[in-house]
């Protein structure tokens, strides 16, 4: 009995040992195959690019608010109030205008930058001596359709700009220094390479996730990859975009504000005439003023506070002594 029991125990230990080895082998195989990093947004370039400041010396803290129902005269008056286009753009400059061409929707719906405003801005840049004006965005819809159906593409080309659509070669990995979200992420750097000036032009819109979409949210269109993952931290990403870009000038178009069902809208009834164009060099200040057109207070819009605390600008726009122009 004792010998039989010993044999049984030996057999049991042998089998248990084999089973244990099997489990360990499978575990080791799984460990070896496990990707602790997850899918990378890196697009194969060796080094991250750096995004320079596009701020123009001597123009900081400039802010103008123009009341008008007509965009073109409002733009001219606003720029005049800031010292003229010559204060921002000079002879031989390469100027990039980052529009909001996010959707393949008609201009009348106000979900994208207004084509008349784009065209006039291009003409003013050219008039100030710009050698090259690029109009660009990385829309979430099909880029060609977005630029054509929004009217931005034809208007920009006709005014003398080069429309640059996103393409794989235009992206380079970028990390925001000290950033939490924008790390090793594809940035549409191609159009920005060698640029002297960067101007943001965005409509003022209601936004289902972030309450408002204005000029800082507009920089979202410089990112590539599966950027919708950032919607889970929409306030954080807009704040980081505000830190990522130091523009030469931003323009918030609130002549007609997309006040409901943003950011896409769809019905003309989603728009509200607010007759306001805001121009400035501090995009936090410009956006803080613009959210008022949506009936929001800057203190109630978290991404504004986050961006201000991170040093991207000020929500206290009155401290910049904005120039107010009434065109009637």
């Amino acid at each position: 009995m004792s010998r039989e029991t010993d044999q049984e125990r030996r057999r049991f230990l042998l089998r248990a040992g084999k089973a244990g080895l099997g489990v360990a082998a499978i575990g080791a195989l799984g460990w070896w195959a496990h990707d602790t990093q997850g899918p990378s947004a890196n697009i194969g370039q060796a080094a991250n690019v750096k995004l320079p400041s596009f701020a123009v010396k001597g123009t900081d803290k400039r802010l103008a608010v123009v009341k008008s129902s007509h965009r073109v005269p409002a733009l001219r008056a606003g720029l005049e109030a800031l010292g003229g286009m010559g204060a921002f753009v000079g002879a031989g400059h390469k100027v990039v205008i980052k529009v909001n061409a996010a959707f393949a929707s008609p201009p009348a719906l106000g979900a994208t930058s207004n084509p008349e405003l784009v065209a006039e801005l291009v003409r003013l840049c050219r008039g100030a001596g710009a050698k090259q004006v690029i109009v660009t965005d990385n829309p979430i819809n099909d880029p060609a359709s977005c630029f054509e159906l929004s009217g931005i593409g034809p208007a920009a080309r006709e005014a003398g700009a080069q429309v640059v659509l996103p393409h794989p070669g235009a992206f380079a990995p970028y990390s925001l220094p000290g950033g939490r979200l924008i790390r090793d992420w594809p940035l549409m750097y191609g159009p920005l390479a060698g640029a002297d000036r960067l101007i943001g032009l965005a409509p003022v819109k209601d936004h289902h996730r972030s309450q408002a979409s204005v000029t800082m949210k507009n920089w979202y269109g410089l990112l590539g990859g599966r950027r919708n993952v950032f919607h889970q931290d929409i306030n954080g990403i807009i704040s980081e975009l505000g830190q990522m870009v130091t523009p030469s000038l931003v323009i918030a178009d609130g002549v007609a504000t997309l006040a409901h069902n943003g950011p896409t809208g769809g019905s003309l009834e989603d728009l509200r005439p607010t007759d306001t164009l805001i121009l400035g060099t501090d995009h936090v200040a410009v956006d803080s003023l613009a959210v008022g057109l949506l009936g929001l207070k800057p203190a109630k819009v978290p991404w504004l506070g986050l961006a201000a605390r991170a040093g991207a600008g000020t929500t206290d726009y009155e401290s910049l002594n904005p120039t107010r122009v009434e065109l009637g």
Partner: protein
Amino acid sequence: MELSRSHPSRTQRLLSLAVLGLLALVAAVVFWQQGRYDPASWGWGGAAGTGAGLLAELAVPGLAPLGPGEGFTPATLSDKIDGKAELYLAAGFESMAARRYALAGQPAQWLELMLYRMKDSRAAYSVFSNQRRSGAKDSGLTPNAYTTSNALYLAQGPYYLEAVASSPQPALVQGLAQAAKALLAKLPAAPSAAPAEAELFPAQGMKAGSVVLLAKDAFGMAGLDQVFIAAYPQGAQELMAFLARRADPATAQKQAAAYAAFLKQNGGNPQPAPAGLPGAHLAEVFGAWELFWAQGPYLAGVRGSEDQAATLALAMRLRQALEKAQP
């Protein structure tokens, strides 16, 4: 006996080999599948058979398709509508098909049909009601359909249609109605009326078309789902009545207590219940009043007004309306 314990039989060997073979097959399939992982294909069935076919086959007199259609899944919806995707996803989005059409011979005059397939008719009603444009006109196509100057919106069963024209040109607006009619003829028959709760609000004084179904996390409280709201303008202010049907009276009571605790945590100041509504919860929240209670399986209440008397008056009417509905 000893032999049979130490050496497995032929049948046992074959069975063991079959099990091992099956495991190896599973491992091979997993390995093969993960190499071609597509998040869009997990759990939602992709865009195929989701309405894309309906638009692909749609023929509308006077309209010509502008290119092929597009299909979107929960993983890709934000590629089409950006941040608004969250509204649809929270309500129970399954898929969306979109296609543009132009007036025959006038490619610059175009419209776009966006057909959303939601998980059920309540989900479709939720996205329909959340985006209803004020001052819109009933289109008459279904009980839940309206037009604006350049668009037509409707909910039918689990489908929600947005038809948007590039301009308010009459021929395009007419095209919207024709396209919607043609599409409705292809959709499966389904109840298109609003969910029953939407009919329970007191009709007198209610703002037309103001009933909205909040699918998820109503009033900022996690888990407060499937809540109907309706607006009651009174002078310069607007009161909001709300109600939500729960599985049973005990669940409704529990949620009323949870909502009271939520308000307290967020700066609400609890007050004694008014005499007319024993057992109700009353709280002052940053100058506005919240009055709510459990009534049978319903959580009901009134919020948003600085006028306590007006809040109580509307609450009493809502209570009576619910009593009539479930005597």
